């Protein structure tokens, strides 16, 4: 305390007799958090709340039809059983996208974290993040150029094997997953890379000195230690992928009907905002339920 006073006096010039009263900690904390939370409330929570209210309305509150509050939109899955199939498709696409992202992203992150030669790491990182800087729509449409019949993929394959038929798989679920993996891979690489780069080199060297070969080091050391990154990457991928509509629509064509496109249709085509909102919140509940089910695994992974 004494030294503080001396320091303050010295800083202010000791002739200043005023003693400034310290600001209580909670005031500072509140002041620092207020802009963020204020903005979040205004920009996210309020619209979300509006949508939540909408989901209980009988019709979009913009026409002349009288509005009645109802729960019928939440019965959509019972009234229209085909929605269950669509939801299942979305979950399957989400699962495969997340899995592929996890495998490729983790391996890429390992390569990145282990690349120590000169400026190689920076170069690789920039190359991996480059697709991130281009417009998402452009990225997805460029895949149609590659995947369509007589597209780039066909061209390359036919150059090597002229007798083979078309290998085009545009407008299939594979194309959707491919596009989504492409779009969300950088998230996974970054979260895994951050987790991996905190691992002490000596730990890997210790494992090698004890007789571990690269696959043992990968599976027994790197994978469990990078689990927090892998899990946050999986969450960051799975949630938006389930609700995605651009990739399914463009790359999936007729088969590209997912929860994302159905919800989008309610807002843009059918003009049934309440149903769209209700489906969104149902999807949110499903995602939360999935995370709740695996919360034990997730927590173990993040605290390890």
């Amino acid at each position, binding site marked *: 305390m004494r030294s503080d006073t001396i320091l303050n006096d010295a800083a202010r010039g000791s002739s200043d007799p005023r003693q400034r009263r310290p600001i209580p900690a909670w005031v500072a904390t509140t002041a620092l958090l207020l802009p963020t939370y204020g903005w979040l409330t205004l920009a996210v929570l309020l619209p979300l709340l509006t949508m939540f209210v909408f989901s209980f309305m009988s019709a979009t509150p913009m026409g002349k039809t009288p509005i009645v509050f109802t729960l019928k939109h939440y019965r959509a899955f019972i009234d229209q059983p085909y929605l269950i199939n669509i939801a299942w498709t979305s979950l399957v696409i989400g699962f495969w996208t997340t899995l592929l992202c996890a495998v490729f992203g983790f391996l890429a992150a390992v390569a990145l974290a282990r690349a120590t030669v000169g400026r190689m790491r920076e170069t690789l990182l920039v190359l991996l993040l480059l697709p991130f800087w281009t417009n998402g729509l452009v990225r997805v449409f460029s895949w149609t150029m590659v995947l369509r019949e007589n597209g780039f993929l066909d061209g390359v394959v036919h150059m090597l094997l002229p007798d083979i038929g078309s290998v085009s798989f545009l407008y299939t679920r594979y194309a959707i997953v491919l596009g989504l993996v492409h779009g969300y891979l950088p998230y996974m690489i970054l979260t895994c890379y951050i987790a991996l780069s905190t691992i*002490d080199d000596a*730990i890997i060297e210790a494992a*090698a*000195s*004890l007789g*571990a070969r690269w696959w043992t080091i990968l599976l*027994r050391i790197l994978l469990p*230690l990078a689990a927090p990154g892998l899990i946050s990457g999986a969450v960051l991928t799975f949630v938006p992928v389930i609700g995605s509509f651009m990739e399914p629509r463009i790359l999936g064509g007729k088969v590209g009907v997912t929860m994302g496109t159905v919800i989008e249709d309610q807002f843009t085509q059918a003009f049934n905002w309440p149903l769209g909102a209700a489906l969104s919140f149902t999807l949110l509940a499903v995602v939360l339920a999935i995370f709740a089910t695996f919360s034990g695994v997730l927590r173990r992974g993040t605290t*390890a």
Partner: protein
Amino acid sequence: MTNVNVNAVAKTYGTTPVLTDISTDFPEGSFTSLLGPSGSGKTTLLRIIAGFIRPDEGKVSIGGRDVTHVPVWGRNIGMMFQSYALFPHMTIAQNVAFGLGRRGIHGAEARKQVDAALEMVRLPGFADRMPKQLSGGQQQRVALARAMVIKPSVLLLDEPLSALDRRLRQEMQVELLRIQRETGLTTIFVTHDQEEALTLSDKVAILDKGRIVQIGDPETVYEKPLTRFAAEFLGDSNFLQGKVESGAVRLADGTVVHVTGALPADGAQATLAVRPEKMFVVKDTSPGNRLTARITTVIYAGQALSYILETADGMQVKLFAQNRDGNLLKQGETVVLGWSADHTVAVAD
């Protein structure tokens, strides 16, 4: 148990040579310290023996087997790191059993060996704890158990005690020495702590700028340093410069210093090293090496006293003394220092 042989090993990073033509043998059962300042190449040499770095030239063999091109996992080495490097997501038992698992030892047999290893480092009953719950000293013991349980051909220690506080470090030194003596394991120990090197090892290698300057038992290296660097790095030294004259050295101020050991030819320049604790204040005028100097600084450290003195022509001399009677020499006092010709060593620059 095996010896380790390093033959003409060299390593260059870019254009900077880190090791130049290192050849030495670490005999079976020996405890060798690699001692040197940072950048001397001691860690690089250890990592070449471990297999983390491939030498540009030369050969490394462990127990007569050429391992120059054998990867780390195939060398059967035990290694300890400064940062302990325990696997944070595994229990102590899993940590120690890791190397056993790589050798196909699982289950009850592994458990038995893990328990024995933890017993050896005096941590029985710690098997189910996590590394985080252990103190630094305990973690390093686990690391030792983990390295020893696989019955390695050679134990490589990369400054394993540097992160511990003084008291713990001394405890670990005793423990390390006991276990090394019990197992008779060839051990190579990298350190920059000269006291640690002298206490632990039966051989000390002093490295400077990628070369082994001197290697030998601690006593020889300390008492008969070959070079100025060795004399300065291991312990403290006073250096006297002069010209060789009929089997003695005449300093610039005319003082003649006698040397028991070999000297360069008459007329050549010579540098003599004298340990500060080998000097003492003399009151009589009996024959022997003598030097008159004035005390400029007195450093009082309780049991030990250090003095810095200056001769008439401005040469600095250090003097270490035991605090035997509590009587300190005063600053500004002029005294005569004496020392034996046996303790005067001619060193190369």
